[in-house]
């Protein structure tokens, strides 16, 4: 199991990350990748600023990935979460998972995204096209509900 967790200001290259997860492997049957991008919300935003808690962000993502590894037979997992100011169209987060089979890769990716949203210490703030600072984005209750799908059962 290869595990990569990075919290960084710089952009990332999805192809490079998938290549790193699959290079030389012969047992990977499924790669699932999710990329979250900054939307302009109908032209209203000039970007999103992401604040994070250095140290805890990495540690918490690492714990979430460890939980995914315990639940599904994964061969590799890469999570990259950016911070700083990200323009519309810019990449915010990558979750990429490899497994022998599709169902595990899919479920783990979905799980990781749910828990990144509710547990990883990042906070988004809107930057408006008129040059002013918009509000901090409020946590969506649907994100909490999505995360509770995985408990019990």
């Amino acid at each position, binding site marked *: 199991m290869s595990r990569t967790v990075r919290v960084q200001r710089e952009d990332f290259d999805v192809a490079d990350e998938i290549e790193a997860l699959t290079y030389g492997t012969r047992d990977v049957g499924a790669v699932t990748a999710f990329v979250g991008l900054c939307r302009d919300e109908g032209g209203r935003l000039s970007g999103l600023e992401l604040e994070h*808690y250095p140290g805890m962000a990495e540690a918490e993502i690492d714990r979430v990935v460890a939980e995914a590894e315990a639940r599904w037979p994964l061969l590799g997992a890469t999570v990259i979460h950016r911070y700083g100011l990200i323009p519309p169209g810019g990449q915010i987060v990558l979750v990429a998972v490899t497994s022998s089979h599709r169902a595990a890769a899919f479920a783990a990716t979905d799980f990781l995204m749910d828990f990144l949203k509710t547990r990883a210490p*990042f906070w988004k703030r809107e930057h408006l096209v008129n040059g002013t600072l918009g509000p901090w984005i409020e946590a969506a209750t649907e994100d909490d509900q999505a995360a509770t799908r995985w408990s019990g059962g």
Partner: protein
Amino acid sequence: MKLVYFAWLRERVGKPDEEIDLPADVSTVADLIAWLKGRDERYEHAFENTDVIRAAIDHVHVKAHAALAGAREIAFFPPMTGG
């Protein structure tokens, strides 16, 4: 003991972090919040709605009843909106 604040909580408190000497009768996260609210209006405003305050001790999420004993760094922040 070090306290750190993030997002609008940091803005309301007016600083990203601070060192405090914990009073003897403050033993849980909830106690600490109550004590901070009593310090001045900034803290009172920052912590006015405890439903939307999250806390971590040494980089691990904790509930309000968590004990502070042995903690090096307590963090307060709003619900996360990453991902």
